[in-house]
């Protein structure tokens, strides 16, 4: 199993969610986060005085997927979240040791 963390532009969330739904991803966790990468931040100007904000708002997705599905999930997010502009975000893939569904106690792929 893989654990996929994707940080994307907030306005792309709906498109990504739809695309992932169509390839069979059953669930995900979404949080609003702040951070910076190469985009660095943005500048605000008040009466000529510049203030730079170095943390930008992003959305973080967390998805657990079977080993078979994981490459497809990464590709789907990459395509759906891309705008070809700086600050589109990143996708991280981690090995996932186990998963348990709390209601039934199922473990492994069936718990996803």
């Amino acid at each position, binding site marked *: 199993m893989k654990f996929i963390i994707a940080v994307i532009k907030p306005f792309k969330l709906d498109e990504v969610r739809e695309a992932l739904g169509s390839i069979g991803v059953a669930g995900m966790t979404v949080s609003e986060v702040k951070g910076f990468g190469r985009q660095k931040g943005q500048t*605000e*100007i*008040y*009466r*000529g*005085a510049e*203030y730079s904000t170095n943390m930008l708002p992003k959305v973080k997705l967390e998805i657990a997927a079977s080993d078979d599905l994981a490459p497809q999930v990464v590709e789907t997010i990459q395509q759906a979240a891309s705008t070809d502009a700086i600050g589109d975000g990143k996708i991280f893939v981690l090995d996932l040791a186990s998963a348990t569904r709390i209601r039934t106690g199922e473990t492994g792929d069936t718990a996803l």
Partner: protein
Amino acid sequence: MLRTLTRAGAAGLALLAPVAAFAQEAAEAAAPVPNPGNNAWMMTSTILVLLMILPGLALFYGGLTRSKNMLSTMTQVGATAALAMLIWVMWGYSLAFGDTTYDGTLGLFVSGGSYFLTGMDAASTAATFTDEVISKYVFVSFQMTFAAITAALILGATAERMKFNAVMAFVPLWLTIVYFPIAHMVWAGGGLLFEDGALDFAGGTVVHINAGVSGLVLAYLLGKRKGYPAEPMPPHSMTLTMVGTGLLWVGWFGFNAGSALEADGSAGLAMINTFVATAAGALTWMVIERAAGHKGSALGFCSGVIAGLVAVTPAAGNSGPFGAILLGILASAVCYFAVAKAKAKFGYDDSLDAFGIHGIGGIVGAIGTAVVYQPFLGGPGDGSTALSAQLGVQVFSVVVTIAWAGIGTLLAGGLVKALIGLRVSEETEFDGLDIGEHGERAYN
């Protein structure tokens, strides 16, 4: 000039209709009665100027501060205005417009009598610019709001670091030393600049240059805010600043069109000028932002509105509408450079740009009034005063105001600094003046 014309007209009428002569003599013997229309407009104008202070200026300035200083900024504006009102009826009106006029040098700077409004009742009247009169209490109240807003305007330069009790000690001293004499010099018969022929319809010198220069001097006495300019101190609520700006613009009609002292054509001229100069100022600031490679901003819009309003104040009834537009454009451009470039270059901490916009805009307006007054630009002047002569008079009035405000504020501020100190403690400044000085928070 208007007064002379009207009197000649009345005399001509009497010659043409001798039958009416007796009636007219009888009328002249009776005390003049205010025209209710004029009185109503002046009462409305007075309240419009109050609208500029609370809530207009309080929200405009408050929104520009950091959230921890929102309430203290608004409270200082409100308390300053309240204090100025009481001082005005005690001795302010006397020094500026009192019934006792002094001969010689003293009369150029102050008047006397009428302390605590003695000798005044509901039937008392004050002269206007024609043969009309308005109720004296209305005139006293109208001028009272000018003293109140001018004192409050200064606080934009000192925001986020001045002790509340220092503000309360400074205001009476400053009004007495600086405001009342300047108001007398510019607006009262016998005053130095009035007799010199200076044009200041609604307070370009008395209000804006005066407040701006005084603010700059006080900011210098106070020192810079902790962390300025290295730390970011962006405005905490552009929304409230925009609300304040709107209220200022609305209230300014009382300020400018009220200064005609009657609901007449001159007031109408001041009204249209207050619309168009402001509109031109607002858009000019945004265009300059774009030209400088930035985005047209809300604060740019608000700043341009104030720059336009300030610049048209001395010219309100002394310019045609297109002269006023020129003045709005010019003032907005000059103020932009003062605020965005000069302030950073010279490094003074005029927190909310009281000097950058009121001081500089006032100077542009006062000097520009000499130009837009001329008939070739559609101004109401009859051309009897040459442009160069009027320019000289205007520049002189600006120089006198800057010197008087600068030296007077140095005295008043220096005295308060020596006696009780001007600045809050470092801890209060860090925690914010809302909690430190008033024990309240703007937002919970």
